[in-house]
């Protein structure tokens, strides 16, 4: 199956700093999503971004599908950004499939 690798595994930031999280995947995808899991365990969808660039406030994401990676940018970080960030992909199967494969996350 498709492999998803995230880096770095851990990240410590001063409040106000910027950061970039990376997600590499091993095959073509038709669905890529970024999630934030808060310290209480709730997973929130941040972006659905199989290709291109999207922005939402201080967060933005870029996926370069041809090179099989996605980046999540966090600007002017705040304490509420703490948690774990997951990338999840759904490999292309022609007819589409129902399940996402998750990376192991970046703990911020």
């Amino acid at each position: 199956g498709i492999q998803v690798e995230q880096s770095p595994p851990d990240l410590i930031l001063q409040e106000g700093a910027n950061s970039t999280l990376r997600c590499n995947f091993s095959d073509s995808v038709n669905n890529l999503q970024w999630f934030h899991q808060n310290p209480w365990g709730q997973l929130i969808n941040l972006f659905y971004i199989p290709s291109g660039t999207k922005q939402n406030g201080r967060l933005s994401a870029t996926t370069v599908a041809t090179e099989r990676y996605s980046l999540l940018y966090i600007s002017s970080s705040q304490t509420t950004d703490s948690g774990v960030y997951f990338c999840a992909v759904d490999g292309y199967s022609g007819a589409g499939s129902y399940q996402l494969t998750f990376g192991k996350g970046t703990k911020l």
Partner: protein
Amino acid sequence: DVKVTQSSRYLVKRTGEKVFLECVQDMDHENMFWYRQDPGLGLRLIYFSYDVKMKEKGDIPEGYSVSREKKERFSLILESASTNQTSMYLCASSFGRAGNTIYFGEGSWLTVV
């Protein structure tokens, strides 16, 4: 807003007990999922369902079963709980085929003693 509700936030069960984890979604989603999350392993798919009474095995189905009698409800069953099933369990749902946003419940922390 989409709401995925898991019936129990924290459970402690004894080895050998039968355990039911319930999940309900209120957005008429076709697809529902059960994941387990363990430190260093990320989220791993146990089972998913794309329609009532339909189920498909995920990556780690051993020791688990599921039930989907109604569209809004997806239950995860541990027939005989074991200590290696101590974990956080996450239910999720999504609409239609691949390519749609997936929504998660708050998680159920299960400890088997």
